[in-house]
C-alpha cells in the first residue's frame, strides 16, 4: 500500500477507537445504561447520572487531546507534518 493510504487507514482506526469511546461514555453510560449504572454510587453521585452530567464531558476533553497527540506522532512517523 502507498504511504498516504496507510497513513489514512491508521487515522481511520484511531478515529474509530475514539468515536467508540465517545459513544459509550455519553449514549451508553449516560442514556442507554443509565438505570443499571445508577445502582452504583460515586460519592454522592449515582454513576449513570454523573456520566450524563459531568463524566462524559471530562472524557470528551481527554479524547480530543489524546487524538491530537496520537495524530501528531502519526504525522511524524509518516513524515506528512507541515
Amino acid at each position: 500500500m502507498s504511504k498516504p493510504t496507510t497513513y489514512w487507514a491508521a487515522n481511520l482506526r484511531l478515529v474509530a477507537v475514539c468515536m467508540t469511546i465517545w459513544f459509550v461514555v455519553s449514549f451508553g453510560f449516560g442514556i442507554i445504561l443509565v438505570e443499571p449504572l445508577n445502582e452504583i454510587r460515586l460519592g454522592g453521585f449515582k454513576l449513570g447520572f454523573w456520566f450524563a452530567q459531568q463524566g462524559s464531558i471530562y472524557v470528551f476533553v481527554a479524547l480530543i487531546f489524546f487524538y491530537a497527540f496520537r495524530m501528531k506522532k502519526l504525522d511524524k512517523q509518516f513524515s506528512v507534518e507541515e
Partner: protein
Amino acid sequence: MTLKTLTYIVVGLTFLLYIGIAVWARAGSTKEFYVAGGGINPIANGMATAADWMSAASFISMAGLIAFMGYGGSVFLMGWTGGYVLLAMLLAPYLRKFGKFTVPEFIGDRYYSKAARIVAVVCLIIASVTYVIGQMKGIGVAFSRFLEVDYDLGLSIGMAIVFFYAVMGGMKGITYTQIAQYCVLILAYTIPAIFISLNLTGNPIPQLGLGSTMAGTDVFLLDKLDAVVRDLGFAEYTTNARISLTNMFMYTMSLMIGTAGLPHVIIRFFTVPKVKDARSSAGWALVFIAILYTTAPSVAAMARLNLMSTIEPTAGEYMRYEQRPDWVRNWERTGLLEFTDKNNDGRIQYSADATVNELTKVDNDIMVLANPEIAGLPNWVIALVAAGGLAAALSTAAGLLLAISSAISHDLLKGVLKPDISEKQELMASRIAMAGAIAAAGYLGFNPPDFAAGTVALAFGLAASSIFPALMMGIFSKRMNKQGAIAGMLAGISVTLLYVFQHKGVMFIESTSFLGDLSPNWFFGIEPNAFGAIGAIVNFTVAFGISSMTSAPPQEVQDLVEHIRVPAGAGAALADH
C-alpha cells in the same frame, strides 16, 4: 454606591475594553477580515471559540432548564459538548488543510458545483439568522433587566458596540474581543457558583460540591434534593428522563451533530496556523466550554435546593409570604417570580399538584441571575453577572454575523456574481455585508417574529441535516459526487423541516400545524427539536444512493480529497480565485 451605578461602571468598563480592542485589531486585508490572518494561537482560538459558542442561552438559561428537568437536562450538557469531539476528528483538521475562508466554499469546490455552494449558503444563512435573533433578544433583555434602560435602547447600544468591532476588525477584531468576553463571562459564572457551593456543602469546587454532603450533616446533596422534590410530588431529580430514553438519545445526537455543523463554530478553526493546531484547538475550546458546562449542573441542583428551602425552610412548614427574603422581593418585581396564595393562609405552598401549588411562576433564568443575591454576595458580583450575560450574547452574535457576512461577500458576490472584483473591493463589500447583517439582525431583534421561540430547533436541525453530512462525506468518501451531495442536502432539510412544521406549524404559525405538537403523533416519540439526527440519516442514505447511480467525481476532485487528508503542504488560509 448603589447597585445600579456599580453595574453601569462594570458594564461600561467591559465595553470600553471591547472598543479598545477594536481600534487595535483593525483588519487590513480580506484574509484578516475572514480568518484573522490565519495566525491565531490554538489556545487563544480555543478561548474565542468557547465565547463564540456559549450564548446568552448557555449563560443565563441552561442551568435553570436543568434545575427543573434534573437528569433530563443532560441532553444539553452532553449534546452541546460532544459535538466538539466530532469537530476535532471528522471536520476541523481537514477543513483547515483545505485552507479557504468559508464553509460553502469547501462545499462548492469539493462538489465542483456552484449550485451546491448556493444550497450551502442558503442553509448557512437560515441557520445563522434564526440563531442570531435569540442573541439580539438576549442583549435587549440583559440591558433592560440589569441597567433598567428600555429594551429598544439596550438593543441599539449592543448593536453599536458589535458594529464597531465587527465592521472594523472582521474576524481579527471579533477573535480578540471574544477572548476578553470569555474571561468576563467565565468569572461571572464561576464566582457565584463557588460561593453557593461553599455555603451548601463547604466544598469550594462546585463540580465536587454536587457530589458532597450538605454542610454539617452526612446527607448527600443530591439525595436531599431527590427526597425534597419527591415529597412535593415532583419526579426524582437524578432519574427524571426527558420524555423517554429514546427521545433523549435522539435529542443528544441531534445537538451533537448540529453543533459540529454550525458554520460560525467551524470557521473559527480556519484561523489557526496549522492542521495540528486545528485538532488541539478543538480540545482547548472544549476545556474552556467544559469549565462552564460542568459548573452548570451544580448551579442547577444547588439553585433548585435553595429555592426549595426558601419556600419550605423546615419540613412541612412553608414560608410566610410576609417574611419572604429580599431576593424574592426583588425578583417578584421583575415579574419572573410570582406567588398566588390560593388558600389564603399567608404561607406559600409548593407542590407538583397545580391546584395546590402557590409558586405560580418561576422563570428558568432566575436560577442563574438570582444566584449572587441568594448567596449574599456583594453588589460587584451582581454587576459582573450582568457584564457576563452581555459578553455571552455579544460574542455569539458577532461570530454568527461574521459567518453570515462572509457567506454573502465571499461566496455569493466574489464566488458567484462578480468573480473579478479586487481584494480591496471585496474587503469593502465584506464590511458592507457585515453592516447589513447587523442591521437585519437588529431589525429582527426589534420585531421578533412569532416563530422566534421555535427557531433554535430549526438552526440545529438544519446544521445537522444538511451541512454536517455534506462536509463529512466530502472528506471521508472520495466517491461522493455532486448529484449525491445536493440530493442528500435537499432531502435532509426537507425531512427535518417537514417534521418540525407538521408539529409546530408552518413557519411556526401554530394554526397551520397539521399534526399538532402532541407526543402520540411523534415518530417513535421523538420531539421535533430532536429530529435533526433523523434528517442527517436521511441525508447520508439519499446521498450514497444517488451517488452510486451517477458517475464518479472528476479526477482533480478525488486528488483534492487525497490532498486534504494529509497535513503536509498546507499553507495559511488563502483565496486562490
